């Protein structure tokens, strides 16, 4: 069966989303066109508004609707601690532990030579700028304990050590090869507790 033009276009757009194969895209598309008009309008508006209103925080590089973001402008947080993570979802995961009261810096990725992602593709320049003020006493590297996260941590450690700031690596209370965003709260809290200085 040949899909009617508009439906085919919807399938095509949906199948560009991560983790959505052609079959899933078709299933979603057929589901969407059978919904009441107002539901679909709400979905479309949510998509457009999210894209329009979400930007990168000029301080921590996290995604936000206000700049600086709420975590950066919260006076209760400790400016001396800076936790470096790969992505926005890692911030959410760490916030769920309620263990950590410092600030964050979001790299928006990890070094992955095989994917052509080097230090230049990450928000490292912004991190260095933040350290200029001298307020940060400790940088906690909380990248994933997989090869890309480890490479990123090693790279940052070499880059930051000469600046005289203390650099620690979140402890491996977590399985090697895992990913911060999928860890349960207890494991994450333990890992944060047992962080160590990186050599």
């Amino acid at each position, binding site marked *: 069966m040949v899909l009617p033009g508009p439906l085919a276009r919807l399938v095509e757009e949906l199948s560009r989303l*991560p*983790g959505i194969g052609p079959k899933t895209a078709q299933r979603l598309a057929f589901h969407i066109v059978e919904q009441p008009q107002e539901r679909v309008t709400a979905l479309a508006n949510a998509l457009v508004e999210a894209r329009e209103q979400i930007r990168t925080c000029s301080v921590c590089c996290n995604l936000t609707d206000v700049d600086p973001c709420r975590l950066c402008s919260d006076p209760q947080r400790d400016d001396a601690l800076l936790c470096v993570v790969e992505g926005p979802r890692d911030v959410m995961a760490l916030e769920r532990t309620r263990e950590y009261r410092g600030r964050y810096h979001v790299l928006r990725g990890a*070094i992955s*030579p*095989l*994917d*052509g992602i*080097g*230090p*230049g593709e990450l928000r490292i320049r912004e991190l260095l700028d933040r350290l200029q003020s001298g307020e940060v006493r400790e940088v906690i590297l909380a990248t994933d304990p*997989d*090869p890309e996260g*480890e*490479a990123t941590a*090693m*790279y940052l450690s*070499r*880059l930051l050590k*000469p600046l005289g700031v203390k650099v620690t690596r979140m402890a491996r209370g*977590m*399985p*090697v*090869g*895992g*990913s911060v965003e*999928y*860890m*349960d709260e207890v*494991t994450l809290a333990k890992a944060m507790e047992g962080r160590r200085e990186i050599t």
Partner: protein
Amino acid sequence: MIYHAEGIVLRSQPFGEADRIITLLTRPEGKVRAVARGVRRTRSRLMGSTQLFTYGSYLLVRGRSDLETLSQGEIRESLRRLREDLDLMAYASYACELVDRMMVEREPDEFVFGLVLAVLRQMEAGSPPFGLVRYLELALLDRLGYRPELDGCLRCGKAWSPGNGWGIDGEAGGLICPECGTAPTVRRLSPGAVESLRRMRSLPAERAGVLRFSAETAREVRSALRDLLDARIEGPLKTRAFLESLEAAPWKEANHGRAGSD
């Protein structure tokens, strides 16, 4: 078809919510790609054996798609230093990308499997990674039908004898003598660089870790092999940029004298 295979993880990419697609260089089936389901979940049994650069034993299922399913995996040698040292990670990534790019899927090659394993093992054991990847480059060219001419001039057949004015033509695939070497594609090489290339070829893979070059020879050998490879591989190698960015990293001062590096 279900089969057991020794393999080396050349690549491991996140796929969907919790899966990974790994590229394995296997001994019996050559390069294959396999999906490892649920491997990014905390308690997955497959997590360890699907780590990049791991040498393991795998149980694979081949269906009708071009993607196998990884059913079981067991680590033989973790080769963990390759993941825990930034420079080694960069070199090992380069080695794996090169193999991935040059090998065709599902074409077994016992020799190449042994070669890659020997190179990664010696890298893990602390041999200079620079020489090991140069060795790998030449050995892959030799094995895969692009054997560069290093015994004499490609054009006139004049036998190599150490002297100035010789060069390498990557496009044509070998040495060019001083008399024939007028084309702009010919890169001049010092006699020492040519001898280094020839010596590399005479070494068995298990001994490639002994290779060391002076800084100047290292640069020449690297450029010569790059010319030869670029004529055979389409598009740039992604890992090369990272290796270069490490060499130019802010914490690297003038350490050109260090054996094996440049």
